[in-house]
């Protein structure tokens, strides 16, 4: 496997990311496995918020730009997006072994935990406090994921389309999905198509 080359950046004048020799990276597939297990076990109601905090802010395996770009790819491909993202990262560092280690880390231990919870739940399903706790965690999880989006907003300042057009595109997506409940495929094709087309025109061939 070739050493990871820096991902393409959002705009030509962004400073180049740290070169591959000095920037942090996982030390082995086992490191990947346990890092992703730890990520997954912190991710109640979805792992995305934790992925951003751990991999970008704490471990610094990814820059904000790379996270946005990788997440876009993971989002568009069919399949669970966090799984796709771990697969991409694992493959980038250690090829197929890394991909298997990262996805395995995401799934193996959490699978055992969730089975145990399901068996426990079948004993306590009648308790209103249990259902209430599930609801409260759902609300918090929603806030956490929305905050990931808000935190990434400043990154769009460097975007080739300009900050305001980017904000408009993001707002259209929020309205279409959360308010009008447009099926995701249409939003990706429609708004995504327009955004990619405009960006294509701005980029030098």
């Amino acid at each position, binding site marked *: 496997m070739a050493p990871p080359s820096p991902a*393409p950046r959002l705009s030509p004048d962004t400073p180049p990311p740290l070169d591959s020799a000095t920037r942090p990276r996982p030390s082995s597939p086992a490191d990947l496995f346990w890092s992703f297990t730890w990520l997954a*076990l912190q991710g*109640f*109601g*979805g792992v995305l*918020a934790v992925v951003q905090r751990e991999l970008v802010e704490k471990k610094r395996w990814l820059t904000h730009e790379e996270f946005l770009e990788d*997440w876009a*790819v*993971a989002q568009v*491909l*069919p*399949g*669970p997006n966090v*799984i*796709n993202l771990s697969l991409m990262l694992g*493959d980038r560092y250690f090829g*197929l072994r890394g991909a298997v280690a990262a996805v395995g880390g995401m799934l193996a231990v*959490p*699978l055992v*935990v*969730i*089975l145990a919870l*399901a068996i426990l*739940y*079948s004993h306590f399903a009648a308790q209103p406090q*249990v259902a*209430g*706790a*599930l*609801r*409260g*965690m759902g*609300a*918090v*999880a*929603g*806030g956490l*994921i*929305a*905050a990931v*989006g808000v935190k*990434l*907003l400043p990154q*769009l300042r460097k*975007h080739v389309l300009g900050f305001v057009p*980017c904000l408009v595109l*993001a*707002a259209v*997506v*929020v309205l*279409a*999905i959360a308010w009008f409940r447009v099926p995701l*495929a249409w939003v*990706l094709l429609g708004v*995504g198509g327009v*955004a*990619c087309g405009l*960006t*294509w025109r701005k*980029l030098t061939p």
Partner: protein
Amino acid sequence: MTAIQITMAWPDWLALLLQFMLLSMMSVSGAITAVPDMHRYLVVQQGWLSDAQFSSSVAIAQAAPGPNVLFVALMGWNVGLNAGGGLAGGPHAWALGLLGLGITMVGIMLPSTTLAWFATRWLHHNGQRRGVRAFKQGMAPVVVGLLVATGLILANGNQRPDSPAWHLWLVAGVAGLVVWRTKIHLLWLLGAGALLGALGFV
């Protein structure tokens, strides 16, 4: 969550596998988008799961640690338990539960991860093409919008009829603000949410 009595012959298991493989390719941006179709197949058409089993599978996975896709594992587990006579059915039921879990997880994961693996390799080697760069950069504002929208839907998703909606929004909003502005560990926030829920605030 009581088990329902069903019998599963091997063509049924195969049908279950094929159905989830099909759903795998259709679940763009997360298995959660395929939930309505899973309900149609498992509950309405085949009768392999009860409504309560179906919705609790989704709810437990939402609240449990780990990727949301694990709700699919719980659906397979419950189908297997039903076929084996419920948790009381002993080792036989547990084995069938694990079989169902394996089948639904392999079905939902294998096609999409295989495709994702080839696609990311291709993208990695063609990263300098104008079209690829335009796609990756152009999607950035869309992704930001999607994250916010997903958060809103999740926060709003499980409202209780007898508590005011603004309680839910307040909890989600404060959680979002805290995680945006501080470095506090996310588990503290989730714990606080669970406590507020157990006390009946949301």
